């Protein structure tokens, strides 16, 4: 090999190949995320774009006629249709009733069940079981229990001299009844989250406070509660979002009644889209609900960032 050939070979050897380590890693990374990404595009982004387009049309599913109407559906919902604000009010009422009740009960149960004692697993299971119970079965059972005079709840109340209302048929009580039954069904999930958070707090903090003379209440509100703040924030936002999205519970227990007293946003969208076949209007409502849920998620992120900062 001549010196010039040698130089040429060395130059060839040091040339950077197209498939660099960086590109290889990037390719592998895309390969790993692709199943999720494809699923996201097909099942979330695609429908979201479709709903966005539908919301700009007047499209009746029965007549199969679709007309572009711009933001008319949004204007209709926000300024013309009185039902919309009733539905928003009901959704807010549902959230305002459910979230504090759910969180307070979840925290109370978690405080009672976070430490080991005989039978603790049994009690945790009892309170968590409704979460994994079929929503249909749950609703049917509670509809029976909450029937007028024949319902077990009212019979129980009658035994102590209280004349119970017809829970699911009276506008003043229906919302309360669906909130309470929803809380009982879902509280186990938040209880588990709180138990995990409580168990992650080192016992040294509590014992140090105990040695310094703090009472049980002082230990809770000066040490434990602040340390639970990140979990509380997450639970609060998740539960609020969940309460705005509630559908099955309302559908199965009250059908939005009585007198639209429990007609909430998700169920109203279903009604407009699949009972009245106003796909365009239902899509506009879905977009509005998406914005509300997105706003709550952004609030969560901001609060979490502030909290960790």
């Amino acid at each position: 090999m001549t010196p010039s050939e040698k130089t040429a070979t060395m130059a060839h050897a040091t040339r950077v190949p197209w498939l660099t380590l960086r590109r290889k890693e990037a390719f592998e990374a895309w390969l790993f995320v692709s199943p999720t990404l494809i699923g996201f595009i097909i099942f979330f982004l695609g429908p979201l774009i479709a709903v966005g387009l539908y919301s700009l049309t007047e499209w009746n599913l029965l007549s199969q006629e679709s007309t572009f109407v711009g933001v008319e559906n949004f204007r209709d919902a926000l300024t013309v249709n009185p039902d919309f604000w009733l539905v928003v009010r009901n959704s807010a009422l549902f959230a305002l009733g459910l979230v504090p009740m759910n969180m307070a009960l979840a925290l109370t149960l978690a405080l009672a069940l976070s430490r080991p004692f005989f039978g603790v697993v049994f009690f945790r299971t009892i309170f968590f079981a409704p979460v994994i119970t079929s929503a249909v079965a749950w609703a049917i059972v509670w509809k029976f229990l909450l029937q007028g005079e024949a319902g077990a709840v009212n019979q129980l109340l009658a035994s102590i001299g209280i004349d119970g209302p017809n829970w699911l048929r009276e506008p003043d009580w229906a919302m309360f009844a669906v909130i309470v039954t929803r809380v009982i069904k879902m509280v186990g999930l938040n209880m588990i989250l709180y138990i995990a958070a409580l168990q992650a707090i080192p016992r040294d903090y509590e014992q140090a406070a105990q040695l310094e003379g703090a009472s049980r209440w002082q230990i809770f509100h000066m040490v434990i509660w602040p340390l639970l703040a990140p979990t509380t924030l997450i639970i609060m936002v998740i539960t609020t979002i969940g309460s705005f999205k509630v559908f099955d519970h309302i559908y199965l227990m009250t059908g939005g009644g009585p007198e639209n007293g429990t007609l909430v946003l998700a169920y109203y969208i279903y009604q407009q889209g699949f009972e009245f076949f106003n796909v365009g209007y239902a899509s506009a409502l879905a977009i509005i609900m998406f914005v509300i849920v997105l706003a709550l998620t952004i609030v969560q992120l901001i609060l979490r960032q502030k909290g960790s900062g």
Partner: protein
Amino acid sequence: MTSLALSNLAKSFGPVKVIRDIDLTIEDGEFVVFVGPSGCGKSTLLRMIAGLEDITSGDLMIGERRMNEVSASKRGVAMVFQSYALYPHLTVRRNMGFGLKVRKMPATDIKQRVDDASATLKLDALMDRYPRELSGGQRQRVAIGRAIVGNPDVFLFDEPLSNLDAELRVHMRAEISALHGRLGNTMIYVTHDQIEAMTLADRIVVLRDGRIEQVGTPRELYARPANVFVAQFIGSPKMNVCAAGSLATQLEGVDFDLKAATQIGIRPEHLKIVPPDDGLLQGRVIVSEYTGAGSLLHIEVEGAGTFLVVQEGQAGAEKGERIGLSFSSENMHLFDGSDFAI
């Protein structure tokens, strides 16, 4: 006057006895170290004194008062935890003032006490920081500061230096010792590190399997260990102990009074390397570890097993080299068949 008296103190977790019949008196202002291997019950004993663990039987007196049923906050003790247990959501100032705040002390008094403690521990520049913004040594000092502000009768330390690196540990050891000198309170300190115990303690309590093996000053424990366990636990490297019979041939003709000893102990630093023919014992170097100031030699002595020897200076014996070992009879420790010192 804050002395402590532990009488027949015992603790069981179900059928498992973890602390057995502890009898111990700790004088006012004394620095006592509980030392022992993992699982010996030293931390449990400390927590029993603190009131964080129930006492199964026996009596605990702090000063003139029986404390068995007294709650932790009313025992006049403060504890520095192994994890420091600093509240992560509070600044250094609020961490230190926490105990005073829950006891409803006026804010001006809290500030005064916290400022005094921070000056003592040189924490002034750190008062508005959160624990996550502090180094290990700084957290340690804050934990001690939190204990100081309560002005307790007795300080309890549960392995407070175990999370620090070696250099910082030496530094903090000196700080704790100096603090004891300044405050003069009774201090009880738990560690598994015998060097920490030797350097800090007025008296050391050696524990094994929930029992006291020996109580004494560091010098007493080093010079006159009560049994083989203490002899090997105190001192580093640990004492060489071998069956007396295994040295009988090699020590034949030497005027040593072995009494009725069945085991003989010699500390590594008391063995001297000599030419093979001049030694009381002969052996071969199987490992030579250079330690900077000298070497730690592992020497196989025929019939008696491996002996550790500290050789000072730079001229360390080489691996495989045949050497002699000599020692003075006064540095020999004799033990009977039950491991007790004779």
